Every structure is written in C-alpha cells, then in structure tokens.
C-alpha cells in the first residue's frame, strides 16, 4: 500500500477498474490522504464538466425558494463537517406539521376569498341550505360529536390516573454522541451483512475510548 495510485486515479474515478484493482485502490485510499484528495478532485472536475452549461434559474422559482427559506430558520453553533462531502451532509428533513402546511395555507389565503372553505360560506346562508342533509341530521351529528369528545375526555382522564405528572422540569441533556457511536457499532455486530460507518470514528489509542 506504499505506492500511490498514479495513473489509476482516472480509471478509479471513472469506475473503469476491475474489482480486484478497485479493491486494492480503495484500500489504498483509506490510508492515503494525498491520493484520496486526488481522486476527489478528479471526480469534482468531472462533476463540474457534467454540469455545464450552468442552468439559469427562473426568477419566479428563485423567489419561491427564497420565500421557503424564511419558513425554516437555522440556529446555533456549527463547525465544518468531519468529512466534506455533499452526500454525507445532513439530509433534507421532512416537513412535519407547520412548514409545508403553512406554506399551503398562505397560498390559499392569497386566493380570492381567502381560501375559506366553500361549505363554510354556504353554512352562513340564512336558509340553512349549507347543512349536509337537513336540520335533523345536522343536530344528530353535533350530538354524536359532543358525545365522542366527552367519551374520549372521560377515558383519557381515567387513564391519566396513576400516571406520574413529570415532577420537576426535565434536566438539560447534551447527548454523548461519540459514545453513542460506539454503542451503535456494537449493536451491528449481530448483523452479518451490515458494516457500520461508526468504524470511521477515531479512537484514542491510549484509552480505547472514542
């Protein structure tokens, strides 16, 4: 593993090496920063070339993206990632609850009528024609809904008996993430075809601890 990749850099970046050759090259890359940088540069160059000519972003799309940015704030300290690689950057997280729905709601409010449901508008008609199937069924539905809410509230109230109330406010926690990586590594030991990325977390040779 002492010899550098040399003219094997391009075939490796292009995926043209056979399996044995690739195994040897990747094993070398795992230990050689210089060759790793060279391969990365080679692939980045290819990626840049592949991306030419640059796409022109429509102004309307740009405005939409900027508007999206205002709904997802970032905060807190940050430092450069351990490995500077796009595919290992924090992933796009799903918008649960607020984000996407809020955007949709704003869009709806901008529509004529403010996005108010049509059935709600109908229900305000003085003749009551907005009701689903007449006066009686509407009352029945209301009564059933009230009953359901009451039954659920009673059930939850009964269930809450005996549960701890949480006591004092929860303590502030900073998770020991490196230690958790060790535990993650241990947990994958029973999986014959899984190889954990936690192997790549540096270990302190003196203590054996990460």
């Amino acid at each position: 593993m002492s010899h550098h990749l040399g003219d094997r850099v391009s075939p490796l970046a292009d995926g043209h090496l056979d399996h044995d050759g690739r195994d040897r090259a990747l094993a070398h890359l795992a230990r050689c920063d210089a060759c790793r940088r060279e391969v990365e540069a080679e692939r980045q160059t290819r990626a840049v070339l592949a991306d030419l000519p640059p796409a022109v972003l429509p102004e309307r799309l740009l405005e939409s993206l900027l508007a999206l940015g205002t709904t997802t704030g970032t905060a807190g300290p940050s430092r450069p990632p351990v490995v500077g690689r796009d595919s290992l950057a924090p992933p796009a997280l799903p918008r649960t609850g607020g984000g996407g729905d809020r955007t949709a709601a704003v869009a709806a409010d901008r529509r004529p009528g403010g996005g108010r449901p049509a059935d709600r508008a109908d229900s305000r008609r003085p003749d009551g024609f907005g009701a689903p199937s007449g006066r009686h069924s509407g009352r029945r539905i209301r009564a059933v809904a009230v009953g359901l809410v009451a039954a659920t509230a009673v059930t939850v109230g009964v269930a809450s008996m005996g549960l701890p109330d949480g006591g004092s406010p929860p303590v502030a926690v900073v998770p020991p993430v490196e230690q958790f990586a060790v535990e993650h590594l241990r947990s994958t030991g029973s999986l014959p075809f899984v190889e954990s990325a936690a192997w790549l977390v540096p270990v302190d040779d003196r203590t054996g601890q990460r």
Partner: protein
Amino acid sequence: MTSSPRGARADRPDRSPVPPAAALPAAVLLAVALLLVVPVFTPATPEAAAADADDDAPAVGLLQRSARSWSTVSFTGTQYLTLGGDTGSAGAVVEVVHRAGGPTRVHVLGTGRHELPASATRVWLAPAGPVDLLVDAYQIRPAGREPVVGRPADVVEARRPDGTLAARLWVDTATGLPLRRELFDTEGSVSQASAFVDLTVQGKVGGLVAGMAEDSPAVAVPGGGGVGAAASGGGSPLDRDDLVALRHQGMACPEEIGDGLVLYEARRVRAGEGRSAVQLSYSDGLVAVSVFEQRGRLDGDRLEGFSGRRVGDGTVWTRSGPPAWATWSTGGSVVTVVSDDPALIPAVVEAVPPGEDGGHGVLARLARAASRVAGWFNPYDG
C-alpha cells in the same frame, strides 16, 4: 366532513331539538363502536411471506451459510471499508483476526484498536433472524461467480421491491465468509463498499489463530458476526416487556422505522454524567440505525458541530458523518440518532417527531394518558 360543524353551531346555537341527555347514550355507543373498529384499520407489519416468494432459495441458503461462517471458520485478513463509493472520501483499513465461534480482534489502521468487551447476553427482538431481515426487505437472487482476493466466490444480489439493485455480496465458495460487499443507492451509484484484500483461512471450528489468546476480547467486526458470535457492548439488554413499560412511561420505542427498518435489539446504556439511555437498534439487513432515548430536554446551545433546523414543533440538530448524527427533544425525552446512512434520518424524525421540551405538567400528563389509551387498542403493543 361534508360541512363545517363549527360554522353551523355559530349561526344556529339554539335549534337542536335533541336534548343532550338523550343524545349521550347513542354517542357513547357510537364511540365504543368506533374504538372497537380502530384495530381493524391498524396497519399490519410487513409480510415476510410476500418477500420470500420472490427470493431464490439457493441464494438465500448462501446467505444463511455465510452468516454461520463466523462460527465455523478461523481466519486473519485485511479488509477495507469505504463510504461514498469510488470517491473514497471516507474509509478505513481494518486488520481482522478471528477465531471460529469465538472472539475477533480488530485493528482499524490509523484510527485505533477496538478492544470492546464481549458479552454473551443479547435479546433478539425482530420476528425473524438476522438474515431474514435482509430476505424480508429485498429480493434475493444469485448473480454468478467471481473470485475475490484469489478465492472463488458466489455472488448474491439484493434488489429493492421496485427492482433496482440495492446490494451485491460475494460469498466465499469454500468457507461461506463474506468477502466483498457493495451497496448501491437508488440511482445505481455505489454508496458503500468493502472487501478483503488479504485473507488467510486458518481452519474450521475450534481452530485457534496464532497470536490470539483464549481470553482475547471479542469485538464487532465489519461484515461479520451472527448472533452470539460477535461482540456486544456495555449496558443491559431489554426485552419486549421492558419496551412496553417504557412506552407507558412516555418513550416512543417504535417497532419499525420508515419502510422496512425493523427493531432487532434494545439495550439500556450509559449516557454520561451518571445518566442512562435506551438504545433501539433497527436494520433491514444491509444498513443499521440506532435511536437513543433519554429523559430530559436537549441543550442545543452546548452541542458541538451540530446545525439546527426547525421541524414541526421542535428543532432537529444534525451533524455530518460518517456516521450521521441527529438529535432533538420530544415530550420530555431527548432522541439521538446514529445512522450509517444519513438518508435514514428523516424516517426516524417522522417516526418520533420533535416536539416542545415539555414532559411535565397537566398537558404532558394528558398526552401520556392518550398514548396509554391508544396502546390499549393497539394489538401490536405488548
């Protein structure tokens, strides 16, 4: 939901001819009926039988033999592991010394020696064994023969339900040892690769590898293992009863993450400063993710190297890997994820959504009670 009850009630507050007292029995009956119907619509767990029908039996047999090989073969070797395919931007070279059915010593060159304590106590929680995780999640097919490190090997492919290639595994024809492994992303690019670049098979069961003492510590080894053969770490294993109790205390402990990551192991582990955490391990047989739940609220200001992003009612903090990390607060607990694949983290966020740092007070108590009631009608809870 054909009309807005709120709107109707606001405009005609005094028109109801049905006295509330008369409506209540019918309402209660309907509520009970609805509660009885709920389990019918509870989504079922993935069916292993459907996947099995698509699998090739000899190929599955190869995988099972490969998983057993760690109990029957002693060897020394050098293996590389790289993430991100051919870029080689993150990788390690690992020297492995393994004794059949016994301990394995691993030295990760450049990062340090792994001397993790052995433990024979494991509680396997998944419905089926380690190989079955893979067989259930993917279609298993043979893909010919191709030598690795000069040894004849059988190639097995794992394909996603949509037919795209997820993994290719090279299994030593003579011993069953997994010699090479490649994972592919959904676009067909190699996302992980590992292989032996040097391997010396020492012998079958009971063969001692030179230089390895009988009491050598066992460690987890990349690509290796099998229940009982590989290492297990500190902490204590949790069984299904423990998980039911934890759920009643407000912890999420989901049975499955996303589409096919199955809970296979749970442990209580140390979490620093005299605290403990529950570790929940999920896998589909090719990748794994660990979810740690511990009591408290997340102190995001003291996190190092994390970036925060608002998601739903809370903030999710992420840090690039490998491995990828994410952490957030939810209902009086702090959830921390360690994942081999960063693409798995959103599925965990979806399964255990972030929330406010509450967890105490009347509302939190009522939330736990609601969760408890839901648990009564969930046939898969306990």
